[in-house]
């Protein structure tokens, strides 16, 4: 089949402080969603979850 499956799946998570745009530059990158959710809960920050899949 011509299914292309070469790839790398990267899961990158950033915890963004929520209160102001100035604080938003403080980004913590994680590769584990569970750990990122825990961190985000502690910091009361939203999560940005990025999926990249090359085939």
């Amino acid at each position, binding site marked *: *089949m*011509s299914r292309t499956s070469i790839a790398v799946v990267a899961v990158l998570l950033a915890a963004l402080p929520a209160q102001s745009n100035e604080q938003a530059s403080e980004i913590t990158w994680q590769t584990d969603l569970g750990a990122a959710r825990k961190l*985000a809960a502690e910091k009361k920050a939203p999560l940005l979850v990025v999926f990249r899949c090359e085939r």
Partner: protein
Amino acid sequence: MRAIDVHNLRFDFDLTFAVVLMHSDGTIYHRYGGRGPDHANSHLSLASLAKLLEESLADHAAYDRNPAPPRAAEPMAAIDLPALQRRIKEGQQIECVHCHTVNDAEHEDAVLGNSWKKDDLYNYPDPARLGLTLDTARQNVVTAVATGSAAAAAGLRAGDEVAALGEQACVRTLSDVQWALHRAPFAATKLDVRYRRDGAEHAATLALPEAWKRCPPEEYAWRPFKWNLSPSSGFGGSELGRDAKKKLGLDENAFAFRVDYIVDWGKEAHRGNAAKAAGLRKGDVLVSFAGKSDFRSVPHFHAWVSLTRTAGEDTEFVVMRGKEQLALRYELPE
């Protein structure tokens, strides 16, 4: 995707790039990504992503003032999907679970469990199914409304900004619209929409007819999910360039692809074997199939076969072998 809980973190798994903005309690604010039929990056830009991130900070602050954690489904790590566990038990090593693999596995499990319906393939419908064209830069802004469409009947116009749609209480992206459409039923239904025009917010209802999610093959062609569909030609390859077409005496704008592979292995070997029995050889150049020769691309050819043809039907396909033109015939494989 290996450890991702695919029961609770869902997006269009056919995509090669997707973003989810969420709260730590599992609430998903927005999805970002999507694509048009021709380019994987057609709906993506740094400007639209930056705008979404900024707006999501405000959404997050608003949510935290009045949180409503979602009722979580039973968690399921992608690697624990039954279809993947069966492959592991059969000795297959799975290091990496691709996004589209989740679709393949869920489809396989649904077929085995007799819960698969043919129209389930129409995931994450394009806004075109409503008659809407959305701006890829501003994402939720309407740039065109098709005459006679559900969106036109509901009164939407170019310039309107979609604010909410169906289950998606706050729409900021094309993917938010597609999520709302994905969650709506395939059968005839009514979908509430809120939109902003000239600074005021308006409400309307979209009346969607039976089978409204069905799309033409050219819109579906990019989706890797098409490889799960039946019928299938049993062969594929790469499109010929203009020079190669000229050498064969074909019009430079004609559709033609060289048969690089015939699927004569694995559980779909019957497809390739049927094509071989019809006389097809690797290196042949396909110029028409079931009377159609105006395919836009090789993926369009495959999607057209699966979405519009019926397994077992008598099918003639025409190939060039050198400068000789051959008409071959087989029963289209399931």
